[in-house]
């Protein structure tokens, strides 16, 4: 029996010890880029040109994903965001992309049969565009409208999307079509493939591994963690590009830095006996849906009813930071996970991006940290 025992032990030790220690080699087809988070097609991308309709202004694209990024402004602060993006292949086909767009305006997915009835074709000099118009509501039940079009080329697909306030976008039909018809392509020599990427997007606070999770505040469905971005097809890590254009800040010494994530460009924690409060800083291109929807999203996280547009001024305070930065600050008390909770939020529009600073936690702790948070906002500096 003994030799058998020894043999068994030796075999177990051998098998157990050599797991996952070897270098492996293999040949695999190159990864197909993802429709939502991948880098745009750069190598050999044809140069695209267009003429801008009146009233459309170019806005910076901090994400680096867009081929074109425009802002359309209307009366009473109405805004719409126009994006032009390109991705290799057919990006999963029509249906997943249309359903992704539908999700962005709060509509339920449709099937293939319904798709063929809603998609129109537009003949333009650059080719046959597929066009779809969607109207729905943003997170704050504000009516929104989207004009979306895509153009399939042999090796890539172009997306053109105008999303914003319902009435404003409805009035931009002609301008949108004129823009599509003005699009033309000139093939440029192949550029070097994109290398050296952005710092990514992940969070050690996510569930195990979520290394490529494009969301940071937990992987549970619809946590409402992310603001309603104007274009979620272009919401990569905010540190993606142009690091020199990002803000800098100095956190109070007693705040502990936490790992950054896809969304977070700053992340801290502060604790006392009552618990731990979380400080997050995130940035989104453009208006990120506007002030009211985002404040109402925050209110929703504390179980508070949404505000109407008219109540906004009374509910927020303005804070002047360093170098002429203007913050809109809000202090909310409510319930989170069944316990009294408080949230201090600040929204800053800078360099074509909207920055969200948020401190959430047990009410006593957040109240104690309020002055530290406001002082912290004053340390935020433009580069």
């Amino acid at each position, binding site marked *: 029996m003994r030799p058998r*025992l020894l043999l068994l032990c030796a075999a177990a030790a051998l098998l157990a010890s050599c797991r996952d220690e070897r270098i492996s*080699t293999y040949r695999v087809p190159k990864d197909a880029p993802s429709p939502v988070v991948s880098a745009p097609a750069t190598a050999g991308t044809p140069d695209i040109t267009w003429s801008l309709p009146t009233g459309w202004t170019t806005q910076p694209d901090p994400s680096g994903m867009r081929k074109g990024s425009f802002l359309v402004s209307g009366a009473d602060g109405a805004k719409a965001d126009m994006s032009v993006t390109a991705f290799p292949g057919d990006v999963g086909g029509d249906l997943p992309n249309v*359903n992704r767009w539908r*999700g962005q305006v709060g509509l339920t*997915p449709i099937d293939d049969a319904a798709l063929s009835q809603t998609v129109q074709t537009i003949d333009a000099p650059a080719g046959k565009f597929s066009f779809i118009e969607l109207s729905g509501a943003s997170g704050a039940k504000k009516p929104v409208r989207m004009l979306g079009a895509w153009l399939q080329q042999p090796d890539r697909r172009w997306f053109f999307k105008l999303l914003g306030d319902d009435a404003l976008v409805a009035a931009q039909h002609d301008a949108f079509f004129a823009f599509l018809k003005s699009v033309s392509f000139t093939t440029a020599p192949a550029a070097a493939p994109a290398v050296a990427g952005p*710092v*990514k997007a992940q969070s050690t*606070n996510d569930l195990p591994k979520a290394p490529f999770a494009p969301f940071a505040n937990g992987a549970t*469905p619809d946590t409402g963690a992310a603001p309603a971005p104007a274009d979620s097809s272009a919401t990569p*890590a905010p540190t993606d590009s142009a690091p020199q254009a990002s803000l800098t800040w100095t956190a109070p010494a007693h705040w502990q830095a936490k790992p950054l994530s896809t969304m977070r460009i700053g992340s801290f924690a502060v604790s006392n006996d009552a618990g731990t409060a979380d400080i997050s800083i995130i940035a989104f291109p453009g208006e990120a849906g506007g002030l009211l929807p985002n404040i109402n999203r925050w209110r929703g996280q504390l179980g508070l009813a949404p505000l109407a547009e008219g109540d906004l001024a009374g509910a927020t305070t303005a804070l002047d930071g360093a170098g002429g930065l203007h913050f809109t600050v809000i202090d909310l008390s409510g319930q989170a996970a069944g316990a009294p909770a408080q949230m201090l939020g600040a929204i800053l529009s800078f360099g074509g991006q909207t920055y969200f600073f948020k401190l959430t936690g047990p009410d006593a702790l957040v109240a104690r940290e309020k002055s530290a948070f406001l002082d912290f906002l004053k340390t935020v500096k433009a580069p």
Partner: protein
Amino acid sequence: MRELLQPFVRFFVSLRLTVVLLVLSILLVFLATLDQVHLGVWGIQHKWFFTLIVVESVNGFPLPVFPGGYFIGGMLLINLVAAHVYRFKFSWKKSGIWLAHLGLILLIASQFFTGLQQRESQVQFNLGDTKRYSEDFLLDELAVIDATDPKFDDVVAIPETLLARDEPIQHPKLPFRIVTRLYYPNSVVQMRSQAPNAPPSPATMDIGLQLAVTPQAITYKQDERNMPTACVELIGPEGSLGIWLVSPWIEQPQAFDYAGHTWQLAMRSKRYYTPYAMTLLQLKNDVYPGTDIPKNFSSQVRIHDEAKGDRDVLIYMNNPLRYGGLTYYQYQMNKANGLSVLQVVRNPSWLMPYIACALVALGLVIQFGTHLVGFIRKRSVVAAK
């Protein structure tokens, strides 16, 4: 020779050994559960169960403190088999006991094989994404990719554990050797603009120049993961090519040209490729009407298998997909972002516990059934008298 073996045989067939081993296994589970506070559920599995001896580090000195799961399980198995061979003589009357013990042996063996072979990973994709690999929950690897071919990548995947050793790594497929200049098993990587006081970067190439690394304590928490960072120097026959900073924090591979080939470097979650690809077509998050309480999460995926053709399947809670020796469970979902995560489990011996339990049940039914029939017969004979 026979006399020489006798003491061993007596030792291994004794019921006393069985009792001692059962007590030890109860203690093992208890102590490992306590240790979970320090090491988390993944850590204790390797320290306490998938090992022959539990080793505790006392002042940096490794000290064996307890028999490990493999040792106790192995001894139980030997004890059971030995008792069978030497004690029990086969007869139809005893066939129930035989079957029950055979089931037990199979159960222990299946746990042993599961411990060795089971692998858990995940597929994370957005709507429309096509993936032909899953990623490990815990392990990372340094992928050195020869991306010269326009259609294929030739990958040399180096486990993170090899980078942690202070030894140069050489591989016949690589025209350079890899020397680890810095290694943190867990770290935070920031843009230098966000960490103005960070020490100078050891990296001399690519994005590493713009990044600041802060080491972090290794985490064993179940809901966290270690994010290693390494600085690796590539050294060719004619000297150093430079030092790259690699980390799963950096999403895109870093590319460079060397010896007429285009190379990419990426530290990433360890990948397990499959001979087929999967596309996420649709995801659904149903709630109970009038509430926000989730009722069901489901992902519709298309399997692209060159050998078997395309196939659409729906994976939802408690209804996993079994394909190509792997089981895909709906794991996480974020509908707002169009993201679905499937847990992928490889366990070739997943059927063994079912068979083992069926054998034990059958054995017990036969054993007690035989007794019951005999007893009833005896009673009816007595009654007839």
